[in-house]
């Protein structure tokens, strides 16, 4: 391994809170190891050294796309990268800012905040990376969990595919020995959400709000039914699902309608 050349990697960010890149910077014990194990071509938040022309083995991209200019930039990153990874829930599913993406009322929402002409950017409805370019792997989380990142970072360095937990938050919640909040009819999104966070919210007696995005085998009808039976209106529950599931919501809800 040592004899082999270090992989060239880059970290980029679009619209988001920088939380995913900061998660990497904030893991002091590992930051230098991450730094040493690859050739960092670009990491604007951490270094002024950067090479925009170099081709990359792996590009980690945080944030969703909320302006036309970003599409171009993203395409450039895609073109020069062998593997492109959506880092975090914004990049993977659109994030919080995509919660209304199904409504098609972007311009009126936009104008309610920016009533003036805007020349520096052409803003558009927030969408995840996948809406514009091919994404090889997703590492969701708002923000990402460092352990899960590290697990996959080392896999990528060894040319292995990203692997995410194939179970919902509830599994980790039980490992943490928590009493289930759904039993108290608190709308916890645990069973609908992919694990990876170590069930942080339920461990603090708070319902999971779904920040790791949807779990692939979620059973939405049953989850809704249990809570609706306890007088929580559908609208309130739907709002919670929309919070972090971004553009995935459409697909998830459409299955619900087919069922009915």
């Amino acid at each position, binding site marked *: 391994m040592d004899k082999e050349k270090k992989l060239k990697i880059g970290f980029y960010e679009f619209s988001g809170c920088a*939380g995913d890149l900061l998660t990497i910077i904030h893991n002091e014990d590992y930051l230098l190891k991450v730094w040493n194990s690859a050739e960092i071509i670009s990491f604007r938040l951490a270094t002024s050294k950067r090479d925009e022309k170099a081709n990359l083995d792996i590009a980690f991209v945080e944030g969703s796309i909320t302006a036309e200019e970003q599409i171009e930039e993203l395409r450039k990153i895609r073109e020069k990268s062998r593997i492109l990874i959506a880092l975090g829930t914004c990049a993977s599913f659109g994030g919080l800012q995509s919660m*209304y993406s199904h409504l098609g009322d972007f311009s009126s929402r936009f104008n309610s905040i920016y009533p003036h002409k805007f020349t*520096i950017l052409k803003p558009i409805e927030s969408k995840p990376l996948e809406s514009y370019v091919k994404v090889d792997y997703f590492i969701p989380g708002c923000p990402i969990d460092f352990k899960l990142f590290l697990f996959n970072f080392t896999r990528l360095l060894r040319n292995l595919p990203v692997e995410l937990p194939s179970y919902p938050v509830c599994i980790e919640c039980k490992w943490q020995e928590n009493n289930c909040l759904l039993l108290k009819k608190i709308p916890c999104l645990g069973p609908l959400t992919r694990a990876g966070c170590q069930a942080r919210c339920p*461990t603090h007696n708070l319902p999971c709000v779904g920040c790791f995005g949807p779990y692939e085998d979620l059973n939405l009808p049953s989850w809704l039914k249990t809570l609706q039976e306890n007088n929580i209106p559908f609208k309130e529950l739907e709002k919670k699902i929309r919070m972090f599931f971004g553009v995935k919501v459409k697909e998830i809800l459409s299955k619900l309608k087919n069922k009915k």
Partner: protein
Amino acid sequence: MKKIKVDLVSRIEGHGNIYIELSNNKLKNIRFEVFEGPRLFETLVLEKTPEEVLNIVCRICAICNVSHRYSAIRALEKIGNIKVPKEITLLRDLAHYGEMLESHSLHLFFLSLPDFLGFPDAVSMAEKFPELVQIGLKIKKFGNSLMEKILGRIMHGENMIIGGFGRYLTLEELSNIKKEAEKLLPEAIKAWEITHDLHYTTFGEESMLFVCLKPPTDEYGFWGDEVLISNGEEYPVEKFYSFIEEKILPYSSAKHSYYQNRPYMVGALARMSLLGERLHNASAEAFKKSYSLSWIRNPLYNNLAQAIEIIFSLEKVISTTEELLKGLSSLKETSLTYQKFNGKAVGSVEAPRGTLFHYYEFKNKKCVKANLIIPTAQNYASIEQHLKTCVCNIIKKFGTKEEEMIKEAEKIIRAYDPCISCSCHIVKTS
């Protein structure tokens, strides 16, 4: 005519360019172009319950998520007329100190000091100044661990809720925090000494107007319900909030804020200049040694002010944990239900980079209006003013040396510790 452009200034949070236009060896135009894809947070919170508002607003920014959460909670508790015991406030403050330590050390050691010592980043700087980088890492780690332990994770921890906390840390964790802070204090002092001895260039000097929150006691602190201004004025936050004037710029997705037609500065430098006399112990000593009249003219001293706030925060962590060790076990896990939630309020805390205002209006437990005024947006006009002065002075001294201009301009921008993701959530003008 000559145009100089620095695309995407590095080692700052978010996206910003420097644009300089020269004509006949004179500065014609200078801009700090700030652009961040809009996320429209003010619309995201509409229709949401108070809890959901908290889930959302901390995500504005990962660096100062606690401040956002804390400001929002202060506003929401005013609206819901919810009083919390002293220990809850202390615990919140403790997390808030964690954020100060994390944010200041990230900025000082990793984003700003490489400028002064001539490195592209902290990792390269570590080869020559291993100790300094180690201190930075340790303080940052400690700040993060405070947030993780109290709030559930390093960032966007959901544990701080209206009325209190979902779960409390143990007494053992608390006393470990105290021990750790005591161990770090001498190192923080060492870091301040190094920062104190740096060479602060004077190209950008220009008189400044400072604004910060006035702590409720006569101590130094990071929140309050009144605003202090360096011209001697004081207002309740609601009032000051309504005074802030904003100007729209075509080249920026953040606006310029003015107070009485003047740019103003918020942040560590503002706080130190307005409240520094209230410090005690090691932070007071550091302040006395470092403070000079240049502070009120030169934004580069924001770095030094942050170094002192790191000392202050560590001292506060020690005293706060001491107090909490006595009262923590009396607290019960919060599970709040409220019948009514109507009204409007401003909640405000000092974020690491300055005063933060969250305004909300609620009807029937649903948010109907929200407005957030963020430190970097408030500093924006001030940043550009200093950039201008700086470039003019450089031309006077060196002629139109591009490299020099860019270096100094970046230094000023970084000294302000801008947080661009935050700054782009701007006020609705109506």
